[in-house]
């Protein structure tokens, strides 16, 4: 299972510290999804080797207008393994872009309806169940966050929209183990399988995109299999 994190300078811990902690918690990998204006400098392979955990190079594109976001997606698609769009006002735009992997926290300062859920499913854009506000707030804010997740869950079930799950952490101290997230998900009305699928989905996106970017893919649906030397 994977967790998607904001590392320094977007968060309060470096990629290495987050990776170290995530490995202790039992994650198989982390996706670094710093916002475009707060990129981390790190050597993913070196960190991965040091702590025995997969480190996926990602980005969360945040822009005021769809036009600007579109340019950024074009820029980063070939450079990053996982491309996310900061949800909210850009929800509609993001679900219409097949190049986008994940629409993050769509229910924070935004909304998703049946049209968007359906479009996301058609374009293979994953929507994120973001547990950040359930973990980090209480009272009315938490109630709203749980209500938002419920609405999103019902739409996702209806239209078979792909999804990811994340606690959206920005420091090693905020990171929680997969088992804890499974338990939390169950408490707020999710199936355990849903949470597990959502945490695994990050890894599946990363594997798929790495294969696409490896140069062996000639066009969609056509790729070169590595030759078997033992045959």
């Amino acid at each position, binding site marked *: 299972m994977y967790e998607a994190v904001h590392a320094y300078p977007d968060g309060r811990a470096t990629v290495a*510290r987050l990776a170290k902690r995530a490995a202790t918690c039992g994650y198989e990998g982390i996706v670094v999804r710093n916002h475009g204006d707060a990129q981390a400098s790190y050597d993913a392979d070196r960190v991965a080797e040091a702590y025995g955990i997969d480190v996926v190079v990602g980005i969360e594109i945040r822009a005021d207008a769809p036009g600007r976001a579109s340019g950024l997606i074009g820029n980063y698609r070939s450079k990053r393994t996982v491309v996310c769009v900061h949800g909210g006002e850009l929800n509609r735009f993001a679900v219409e872009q097949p190049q986008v992997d994940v629409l993050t926290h769509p229910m924070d300062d935004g909304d998703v309806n049946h049209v968007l859920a359906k479009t996301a499913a058609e374009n293979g854009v994953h929507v994120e169940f973001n547990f950040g506000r359930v973990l980090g707030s209480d009272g009315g804010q*938490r109630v709203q966050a749980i209500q938002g997740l419920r609405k999103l869950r019902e739409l996702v079930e209806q239209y078979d929209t792909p999804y990811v799950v994340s606690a959206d952490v920005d420091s090693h101290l905020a990171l929680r183990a997969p088992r804890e997230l499974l338990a939390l998900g169950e408490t707020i009305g999710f199936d355990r399988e849903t949470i597990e699928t959502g945490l695994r989905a990050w890894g599946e996106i990363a594997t798929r995109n790495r294969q696409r970017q490896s140069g062996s893919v000639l066009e969609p649906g056509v790729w070169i299999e590595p030759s078997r030397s033992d045959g």
Partner: protein
Amino acid sequence: MKHLPKHLRPRWRYLAVGLESWTDADVGRRAFQRELWFATQNLVGDAGSAELDSSVLHFSFENGDGEAVIRVRRGEVERLRAVLATVTAVDGQPIGLSVRGVSGTVRACEEKYIRRPQVQIEERTVAFADTARSAVTRNDRVDVDLPAGRVGATALDIRDN
């Protein structure tokens, strides 16, 4: 008052929990217990709190690292896990928390999961992002002081000078 017969006594499970914070954080048993009860009430309400019936038995915290054993009714372990996920700060100090394991007795829990590891604490100046900064190191972990606040790093991120 007479003790309940053994088969009528409540059944418990004991969770070993590892705690982490910044090295100057001061977290006491009472504060942690209070935070746990608040978190329980916020997430599962009064009814849930009564069902979980959780309490902190063993607690130690020193120099930003700690361990605790938490008692909960058998069958409510998963809900306590959910509650523990939402404990993000104690007395306003951010806290990292992970469940190490669950046992049927306090003794087994402490023997298996409470280990009081040896941590070497050292204050020194490190090169972080090409600038000299003061930092506190705990083995591989490095907490760097930046003007905007503290940042968690590891030995991979710094070069000694």
